[in-house]
């Protein structure tokens, strides 16, 4: 009746990396990060050359001077954590697709689709636009805005805290509405014993003293879209006349940063052709203007626009990202925060052990609302009829939402299945994918190498800080929850 199984082992699904002279692994099936001791690393090295039977593996360890009982314990530990798999290992269950009953957490209110700038790369009005705003309201009405707040509170079920982001167009072109929404939402939330946070994205051209005071007094997080010093900002972030916007926003930004202390003021830089001096931009925005954090993203485009980044430019961007990541690490090791958001965001997700079914919360915990009250997966799909997910008045179109989420699920993306960075990337931005490939569910293959390279770098930073100043990482425990 008793029989012995002869296990054979192979490596699990992990990505190994080194930092500060130590060996680490990123366990893909879980999003977990472990430091390995020498003998555990030896087992992984042995299995990397091919599968090994249980007795052979134990024998090799014992032959290497390891006690048999300890070797058994080691192999058991590695198998339990799924760093090594036996023939009998059961794959981890796949997250359901589409996810069921995911309560709303945040709304992005596009309170206007109008803008006083004409940035040439704009995804809403530029060459690759998908919005179809003809005949629709240009400014959100107070009625629609209040209904959106009520909708958010009703759809967020038992969540204690919800969030509203104000967006545009240029958000501040409808500042009057923004003020009223903040006051109304605070009343409604207080009546339910819940809490709410706010943020907005702006081009900063319309900032004024009363606006800055309101934002500061109401703890409203501010993200400024800005591409760097004058010569870079004015290359594409221009008025309709073609005049650059730097001279207008510079004094306003200094005042905003000097006055608004209740929330972090962050800069969001779009990298495009000729605007690739990442380090120069960072220095200007962080050190000269005083932004708390600066985040960078390559422009979204179909790949054939005059403002697209070339492969050489992208390589330059990546190497500058590495230099700033090293700087981030040096700061962290001496306990000082660094403002390069691209590292901080990834560290925050690594700390959590994020293992995403979808690249972001779009269509899941987050929805965009257009000025007319149409729902979309996020602000980037606002006013795009083909991507509507219902309306504030009639609620979420569950069929369309299900289709969007089913397409966007990482399990539906063939190329992602063999990629170790899928727990964090999950195929990348739905909007980017639609603009590039015509399908929100298409993995963003043009970024794969770059994302893997960047995530590997962030893991090295994570590993080094976990050795040199582990307490510092704890600061990032709640980063995602607060952002």
């Amino acid at each position, binding site marked *: *009746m*008793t*029989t*012995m*199984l002869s*296990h054979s082992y192979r490596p699990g699904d992990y990505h190994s990396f080194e930092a500060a002279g130590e060996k*680490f692994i990123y*366990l893909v099936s*879980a*999003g*977990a*990060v*472990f*430091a*390995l*001791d020498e*003998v*555990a690393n030896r087992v992984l090295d042995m299995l990397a050359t091919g599968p090994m039977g*249980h007795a052979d593996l*134990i024998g090799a360890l014992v032959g290497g001077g390891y006690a048999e*009982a300890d070797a*058994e*314990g*080691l*192999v*058991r*530990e*590695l*198998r*339990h*954590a799924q*760093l090594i798999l036996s023939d009998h*290992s*059961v794959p981890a269950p796949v997250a359901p697709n589409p996810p069921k009953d995911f309560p709303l957490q945040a709304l992005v209110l596009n309170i206007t689709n109008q803008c006083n700038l004409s940035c040439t790369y704009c995804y809403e009005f530029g060459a690759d636009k998908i919005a179809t705003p003809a005949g629709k309201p240009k400014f959100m009405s107070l009625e629609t805005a209040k209904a959106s707040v009520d909708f958010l509170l009703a759809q967020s079920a038992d969540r204690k805290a919800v969030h509203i982001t104000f967006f545009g167009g240029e958000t501040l072109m409808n500042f009057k509405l923004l003020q009223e929404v903040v006051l109304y939402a605070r009343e409604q939330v207080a009546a339910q014993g819940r809490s709410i946070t706010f943020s907005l994205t702006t081009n900063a051209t319309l900032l004024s003293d009363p606006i800055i005071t309101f934002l500061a007094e109401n703890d409203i997080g501010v993200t400024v879209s800005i591409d760097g010093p004058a010569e870079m900002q004015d290359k594409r972030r221009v008025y309709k006349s073609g005049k650059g916007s730097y001279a207008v926003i510079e004094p306003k930004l200094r005042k905003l940063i000097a006055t608004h202390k209740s929330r972090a003021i962050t800069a969001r830089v779009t990298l495009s052709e000729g605007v690739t001096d990442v380090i120069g931009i960072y220095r200007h925005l962080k050190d000269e203007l005083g932004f708390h954090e600066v985040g960078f993203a390559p422009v979204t485009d179909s790949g054939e626009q005059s403002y697209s980044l070339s492969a050489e430019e992208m390589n330059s961007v990546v190497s500058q990202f590495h230099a700033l990541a090293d700087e981030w690490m040096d700061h962290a090791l001496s306990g000082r925060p660094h403002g390069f958001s691209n590292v901080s965001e990834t560290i925050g997700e*690594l*700390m*959590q*052990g994020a*293992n995403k079914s979808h690249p972001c919360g779009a269509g899941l915990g987050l929805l965009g609302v257009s000025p007319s009250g149409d729902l979309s997966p996020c602000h980037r799909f606002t006013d795009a009829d083909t991507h509507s997910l219902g309306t504030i008045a009639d609620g979420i179109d569950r069929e369309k939402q299900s289709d969007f989420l089913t397409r966007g699920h990482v399990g539906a993306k063939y190329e992602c299945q063999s990629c170790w960075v899928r727990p964090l990337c999950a195929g990348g931005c739905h909007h980017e994918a639609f603009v590039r490939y015509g399908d929100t569910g298409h993995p963003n293959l043009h970024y794969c190498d770059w994302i893997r390279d960047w995530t590997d770098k962030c893991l090295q930073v*994570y*590993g080094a800080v*976990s050795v040199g100043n582990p307490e510092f990482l704890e600061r990032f*425990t709640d980063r995602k929850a607060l952002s």
Partner: protein
Amino acid sequence: MKHLRPLNKKARRIDEMVSAMEEDVVALQQQPHVPMGCALAFSPGWEVDAGGGTAGLCQPVERDIYDCYVTCFWPVQVPDHVNYSQDWAGNCASATKDWRNLDIVFP
């Protein structure tokens, strides 16, 4: 865990899970970690979970510990077909076909 140092929240959860497995019922295990009696004969009751323990089974291990009942190789008969659960396997003429008829026994 001795050889792996957890460095993020997810790793710490795995650490807790693995530690719980280490403290799982050792009577069902031997070194190497192989459950007894499960391979060649159909013998409901000897499943192990993905980690080789019994903590993560989809139903309690007591649910269908049929082989103990029939062949008595467990230190005591569980369920006890001598005194308390004489009919437990009455609807299970052939284990491979009728194992679903084995119900939970509440002592």
